[in-house]
């Protein structure tokens, strides 16, 4: 038992952070709000640097679930407008539940193809409009579908066009490569956990921004962070984030443990995503409040995080729905 990242994981994480600090400034995210191609250079870098190799989810060779969440926390913190979450977290995460039969598509994603996940019970597919392959979960089956004829996308990008979502309809004439049986809870454990990791990273950065502002902005001849009204709200934000982070790590460890019960792993992932959605929603809300009118402007980065938080919070179920589902699975009532 060891509830901490290994040296290798910390190094990977730091490397990702360094790259993003240089190559994914907020200005890039902002440009992606109205330029639907501006994400490509950074994505190419991610492919070149081997980040997409995380799609193999190979826990035994240092590119597994734990590495994935370590990396996604950093991407979330940078609001990175690239489809690593959707490829390596959502699409590959679901594919892994289908076992070795799905390995070839995981490999394709590892090589840099963009993947997206479509789940029948949860409309809204992240990066579907950028995807080279779609992993579709419907009626208890997983299928791999190619975008094109028979795949209809309706954009859901009014909130965050920098990493758009879409509603996907797969018609009978779509190009389907494989249909595999899958346990839906098992297939959603890694996708939920990965989404939670991005949200936790995002919330962490937002809190940093709010704390930095509160620690310098003065009103009434005092730094505003010295007022308990602000200080306590930021402290609560910190608690919300660490609550979500702990749950995310727990979910990742269960997902990585081949002997763990699949329903337990799904439940842990659902709670992690719920908590992370709460943390991101609340810290962005608190962030705007602490920043004041500045937080409502285009020039300040806060809206980039706000958009992302609002986009990701309903993904695969909003927080209330996930708490509810996790509880009712334990109660066994429904």
């Amino acid at each position: 038992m060891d509830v901490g990242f290994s040296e290798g994981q910390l190094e990977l994480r730091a490397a990702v952070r360094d790259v993003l600090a240089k190559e994914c400034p907020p200005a890039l995210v902002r440009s992606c709000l109205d330029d639907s191609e501006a994400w490509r250079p950074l994505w190419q870098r991610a492919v070149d640097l081997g980040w997409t190799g995380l799609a193999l989810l190979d826990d035994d060779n240092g590119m597994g679930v734990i590495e994935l969440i370590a990396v996604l926390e950093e991407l979330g913190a940078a609001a990175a407008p690239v489809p690593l979450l959707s490829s390596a977290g959502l699409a590959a995460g679901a594919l892994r539940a289908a076992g070795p039969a799905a390995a070839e598509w995981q490999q394709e994603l590892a090589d840099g193809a963009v993947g997206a996940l479509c789940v029948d019970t949860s409309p809204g597919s992240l990066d579907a409009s950028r995807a080279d392959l779609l992993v579709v979960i419907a009626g208890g089956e997983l299928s791999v579908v190619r975008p094109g004829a028979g795949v209809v996308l309706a954009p859901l990008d009014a909130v965050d066009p920098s990493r758009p979502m879409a509603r996907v309809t797969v018609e009978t004439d779509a190009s389907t490569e494989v249909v595999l049986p899958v346990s839906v809870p098992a297939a959603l454990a890694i996708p939920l956990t990965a989404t939670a990791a991005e949200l936790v990273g995002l919330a962490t950065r937002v809190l940093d921004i709010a704390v930095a502002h509160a620690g310098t902005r003065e009103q009434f001849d005092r730094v505003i962070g010295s007022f308990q009204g602000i200080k306590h709200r930021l402290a609560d934000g910190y608690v919300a984030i660490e609550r979500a982070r702990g749950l995310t790590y727990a979910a990742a460890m269960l997902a990585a443990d081949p002997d763990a019960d699949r329903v337990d792993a799904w439940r842990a992932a659902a709670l992690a995503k719920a908590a992370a959605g709460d943390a991101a929603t609340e810290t962005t809300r608190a962030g705007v409040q602490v920043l004041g009118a500045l937080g409502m402007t285009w020039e300040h980065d806060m809206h980039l995080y706000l958009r992302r938080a609002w986009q990701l919070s309903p993904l695969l179920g909003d927080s209330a729905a996930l708490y509810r589902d996790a509880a009712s699975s334990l109660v066994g009532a429904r």
Partner: protein
Amino acid sequence: MDLRETEEQRAVRADYAQWLSDFLPADYYDKYADYRWDYELRKAYQLASFEAGWLQPAWPREHGGRALGPLEALTVRLESAMRAAPKLPNIQGVGVVAPGLRSFGTSEQQERHLVPVLRGDEWWALGMSEPGAGSDFAGLRTRAVRDGDRYVVNGQKIWTTQAHESRFATLYVRTDPDAPKHRGISCLILDMESPGVTTRPIRMATITDETFCEVFLDDVEIPVTSVLGAENEGWKVAMSSLDHERDMIWVMNWVEISRGVREVQKRGDSLDDHQLVELGRRMADAEALRMTGYRSLTSSLRGDRSKEFFILKLLGSESLQRTWELAATVAGADGLADGALAFERHDALAATLYGGTSEVQRNIIGERVLGLPKG
């Protein structure tokens, strides 16, 4: 204690409703999301309201009213809100500046400014916030130095709504730097066309009809006859202005909460128990806000200092935020395709900031209502 309307109240409300219905385009409610941004309609509504006496119903005819009693006037305001009447394009002109002119203006100032602001011919901005003085209004640093029959003003304002479209502004400046902070402030009527005034709109994160601006003031000359209220009594004008603003805000909040509640209700069958509980909470907020408004007015009419007034801003703005969060949540993925909903949700975040942040409101309640000491 009786919520039933008098015959007169019912008649006034019916008159207004009829008038509004005659004024609005036939497809107004079907295309509300579009008309929301129709400035021509909104301007026309303001002018027609002024002429028909519905703009400030308690005021005399020449000031856009029909000399109604305060309760009747509030009834009309709420009816207007409930019927989603077009939003006044420069709402602080009618809701904040005009009452300020009536309370503090000289007869010359009233003569010159009241009708144009009420008709909407001249827009006004409120020059309060500064880069270093937001919640801490009394910390403002813009300086006005008297020089004969004029002031020379230097400084900067920020978050000044619609300054770039305004002809005038109430400009709060420091006229006595040696007095205690809130005693050395004056309110000047600034002609935005004066030399030395530079206005820069600030781009907001989403679409908005209330653009914030920076206003730079370099050796701007303002005649001493443009003081609103007395010199160094700007604090009083500002507090009154904030009261008017909050009195305007809670009704706006109420409209928006009610509209958000209706958005959620539309999803009827798909709401689960959890969402119904949240919906019930917001329904309660909306009705509580309306009742608190009536109670506040009732206290004032009876000559009591209304303690209820102090909660309107906090209750309204916090509820507004939660209402649109709920609306976004119940909309789920649909909400991500709905720009109007995204705008409402984002716009609601500002509600706990403008007109006094929630933190300031809690201080006011703690100190002025509950009598707790300052921190």
